[in-house]
């Protein structure tokens, strides 16, 4: 009989349930999509800083949505109000949902009070990307930096987030570090909350 066992059709997206859905997306599909995103933006800009900014903005939109969705779906409606709370939320929950594993490490900067670093041996988004020598220090991880900035900004912790390559001796490919520098008001509020 035709139509038996057909999945239920919903009239409007607001009626569809917010289920977990399929946990996995094809890596090749994502890699193709991301490479197209980078290539499209390359045609639109004149310099590398602009390209990084565009990738960051694309990530920002993702980050803001990921924050709301995960807090609603996975964390049982608890918000993060403390700095370490939101950082460990990003380091474990967000990374697990987006990349299938928790981030390699989360460190506090030694030189400045307001700097934190999330390190990853190889960012998923960079796996199939090679940067030509004439682009200098350009890192497509700017997309992931944008995601982190979106999450932090949405939660009320404005910060400047950048992605850097850190060469490690003994390894061919450099590690990627996401550097998070919090704004003044975040530190003041943290001190006030005790």
């Amino acid at each position, binding site marked *: 009989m035709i139509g038996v066992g057909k999945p239920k059709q919903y009239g409007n997206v*607001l009626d569809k349930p917010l289920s977990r859905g399929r946990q996995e997306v094809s890596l090749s599909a994502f890699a193709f999509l991301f490479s197209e995103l980078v290539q499209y933006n390359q045609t639109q800009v004149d310099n590398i800083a602009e390209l990084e900014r565009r990738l960051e903005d694309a990530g920002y939109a993702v980050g803001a949505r990921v924050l709301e969705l995960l807090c609603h779906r996975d964390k049982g409606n608890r*918000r993060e*109000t403390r700095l370490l709370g939101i950082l460990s939320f990003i380091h474990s929950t967000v990374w697990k949902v987006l990349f299938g594993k928790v981030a390699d490490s989360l460190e506090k900067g030694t030189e400045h009070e307001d700097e934190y670093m999330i390190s990853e041996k190889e960012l998923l988004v960079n796996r199939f990307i090679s940067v030509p020598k004439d682009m200098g220090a350009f890192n497509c991880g700017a997309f992931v930096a944008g995601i982190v900035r979106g999450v932090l900004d949405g939660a009320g912790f404005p910060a400047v987030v950048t992605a850097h390559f850190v060469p490690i001796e003994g390894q061919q490919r450099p590690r990627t570090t996401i550097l998070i520098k919090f704004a003044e008001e975040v530190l003041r509020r943290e001190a006030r909350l005790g």
Partner: protein
Amino acid sequence: MTTTACFIVVSKNDIPIYEAEVGSTVRQKQEQAHQHQFILHAALDLVQDLAWTTSAMFLRSVDRFNDLTVSVYVTAGHTRLMLLHDSRNEDGIKNFFQEVHELYVKTLLNPLYLIGSRITSAHFDTRVRALARKYL
């Protein structure tokens, strides 16, 4: 039982992105709608301070005006769902907020929806009013 209720959604930047009068006596309250919005906006300062003291989303009643109470629900992205009401039905209000929160997350997931802009979907409006009739 006739109830007064005014519901607004305020974005992180303190801009209202959705408002609705959802009480059961809506017809005579046109001139009071302005007053309701004024009361809700005045309560925003209190919400701001209170939001950082707790990690819960439902903040219960944060302010009172005559016999009207302001109840607030803060989402992870600091979007505030605020309800001005005269009833005492806390459980109903909490369920109402949770359902509207789910609707809001679904609206937000639309990649073409600019976060912080007005919610103009008629379907969203219909659903919110239906939920208000059900829970308030």
